[in-house]
């Protein structure tokens, strides 16, 4: 009897242990995803739906937990710190301000190359992820793209007496003078915060002068000095206080319809269609037209387009194969062409994933896509072409240039010194 009881107890324990093992295997995998596509970001509404749907479809198996990051710069700082301290999130959104080579070589990120080679890669634009691979490893998967080309207010142009966007920079400055004479700001500039708008203009001018190989010799190309002179001149035709202005000021003037030309990424297109930004019942988009970067006389950049990788998807290296598969599954889900098509429709943003554009795509987005398709070549935005120190120093160098503390050569030298110090 005792033996039978002991056998029964032993069997019960073994069964319980097996059950424990099964329970552990069936445990829900949590994917930690700090995201900036939340809050007022144009991609937030669809992303929220998409993640909720994924969690629903994988209920009890995988759960994506979004850590909301509503401030882009704070999100960068936090990510940099968490990665440095060995707490790389399961999935994160990174941009060109990170040292992609060092991060890839660190071994802290998952290599997605085998998965891409397994057929998934066909969903992406030709060569898009190869350009960012390091020794064959694709840890930074380019996801959101951006083209930077001017958008202008046709109503203001008509009031000024212009029926077309300037084709050359000479013509551009003639337009600026006419706009100023009529009491309009030709364009928005900002040397405050991170100098984003001015940095975009600088990229456009650099591209117009230096063409597709402008970055071949770093900042040594004369295009950078010449472009600085032109950028400085632009400050004569922007709103008062542009030296201390931030993105809010630039956007505010554009929305107030006192600025003729606006330059930002395609993610901003959704704002043109917002009822809140309409005036007298007319959407801002109805008065807008997409232009191309003016040509610089004697320059090499005709037909070129400034682009960047706005967002990479990068996942932490995983030791647990099940979690690794779960993370890859979620990335594949995010980059599914159908989902990306809907994300593009809802936000106006552009992507490296090849997708069939929705017939409901806004006119401005269609025109931006057309400009991208028509480009003879592309040149990356300056903040992606140089180390982060370039972007960090840019506002200081720019304000020094505008206030006459340094000349155009001094501006470029200041940026070069910042890069050298960080190297």
């Amino acid at each position: 009897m005792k033996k039978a009881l002991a056998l029964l107890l032993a069997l019960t324990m073994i069964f319980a242990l097996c059950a424990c093992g099964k329970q552990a295997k069936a445990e829900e995998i949590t994917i930690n995803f700090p995201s900036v596509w939340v809050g007022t970001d144009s991609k937030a509404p669809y992303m929220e739906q998409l993640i909720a749907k994924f969690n629903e479809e994988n209920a009890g198996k995988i759960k994506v937990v979004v850590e909301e990051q509503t401030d882009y710069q704070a999100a960068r700082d936090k990510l940099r710190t968490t990665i440095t301290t060995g707490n790389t999130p399961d999935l994160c959104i990174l941009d060109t301000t990170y040292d992609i080579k060092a991060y890839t070589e660190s071994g802290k990120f998952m290599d997605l190359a085998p998965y891409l080679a397994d057929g998934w890669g066909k969903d992406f634009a030709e060569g898009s992820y190869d350009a960012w691979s390091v020794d064959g490893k694709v840890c930074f998967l380019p996801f959101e793209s951006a083209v930077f080309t001017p958008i202008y207010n046709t109503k203001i142009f008509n009031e000024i007496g212009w029926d077309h966007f300037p084709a050359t920079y000479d013509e551009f400055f003639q337009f600026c003078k006419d706009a100023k004479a009529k009491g309009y700001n030709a364009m928005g500039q900002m040397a405050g915060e991170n100098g984003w708008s001015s940095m975009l203009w600088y990229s456009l001018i650099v591209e117009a002068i230096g063409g597709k190989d402008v970055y071949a010799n770093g900042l040594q190309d004369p295009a950078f000095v010449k472009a600085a002179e032109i950028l400085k001149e632009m400050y004569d035709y922007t709103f008062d206080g542009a030296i201390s202005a931030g993105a809010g000021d630039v956007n505010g003037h554009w929305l107030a319809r006192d600025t003729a030309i606006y330059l930002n990424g395609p993610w901003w297109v959704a704002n043109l269609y917002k009822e809140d930004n309409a005036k007298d019942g007319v959407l801002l988009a109805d008065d807008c037209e997409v232009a191309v970067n003016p040509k610089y006389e004697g320059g090499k950049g005709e037909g070129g387009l400034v682009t960047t990788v706005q967002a990479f998807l990068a996942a932490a290296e995983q030791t647990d194969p099940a979690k690794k598969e779960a993370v890859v599954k979620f990335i594949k889900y995010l980059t599914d062409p159908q989902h990306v098509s809907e994300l593009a429709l809802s936000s106006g943003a552009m992507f490296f994933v090849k997708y069939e554009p929705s017939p409901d795509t806004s006119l401005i987005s269609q025109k931006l896509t057309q400009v991208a398709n028509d480009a003879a070549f592309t040149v990356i935005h300056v903040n992606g072409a140089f180390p982060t120190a370039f972007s960090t120093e840019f506002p200081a160098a720019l304000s020094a240039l505008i206030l006459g503390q340094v000349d155009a050569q001094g501006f470029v030298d200041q940026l070069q010194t910042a890069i050298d110090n960080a190297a």
Partner: protein
Amino acid sequence: MKLERSDRGPLWAFLGPAIVLMVAFFVIPVVYVAVVSILKWNGISTPAFNSLRNYLMLFKDKAFTRSILNNVIWALVAGFIQVPLAMVMAIILSRKPKGWKFFRTVYFFPQVISGIALATMWRAIYNADTGLLNGLLKAVGLGHLAKDWLGTIETAFPAVLIYWIFYVGYYMVIMMADITTIDESYYEAATIDGATDFQQAIHITIPLIRRTSLLTCVTLASVMGLRQFEQVYMLTNGQPANTTSTIVLYMYKKLQDSNYGMASASAVILIIVGVIFIVCIRKLFEGRGETVKVKKGRAGK
């Protein structure tokens, strides 16, 4: 005084936790920062020994030397303008004039608002285009004085600094608490002798709080001045042309560049500047003998 063997146990029992916490949260981080300051490290690759090059690069960088200068100015202004202002307010309100409770609350109120919110508000006030300050100047016929306050080299740093000076509530409350402990009999005796309120403040109040709350407030204010970050970050991000930069903002930008070596080197310099400041302040306050040698609150007892 030599401790008895039996006293040592309780002494270490009381000191032990504090020492452990001090070592864990101060000594180890400081040593770590000092070590990183002599490395070349981007936070992700293998660190390499860089000798004192980070320090040499710091002192070659005009933005850093400007940051030190700004911090020193800030600390001096905090210690020797902001705190004396707070002291004046504390002395006045301690006399309990009509409405003193209301004014005490009003002066202290900014302390409960976050620095970020205050900086955002002042950024709107200074806005060249739509700001209240330029609007007021234009309204009173002084439109020619309107300017981009935060975007002009001559005005940017004073603009960042000046509004903050008047937020004296924190130090004022500390000193008020100290002043209330001074025995009333001193003032009664001084009044009988014909001393004015001003003379009483100079000869009784200030000497009695000089080595207590005044020293504490000057030290605190100076250290706050050396640590300034959010105000500058929100208002100017160190611009124009790095003229409003501070050491902590500079350090933050180096961290953004993943230049952990230079960021740590600037942190070490900040610690050194802070120590020098604290030593100087203590020397300044201990330098002269006490004017009034009677202990507060014990007169006549």
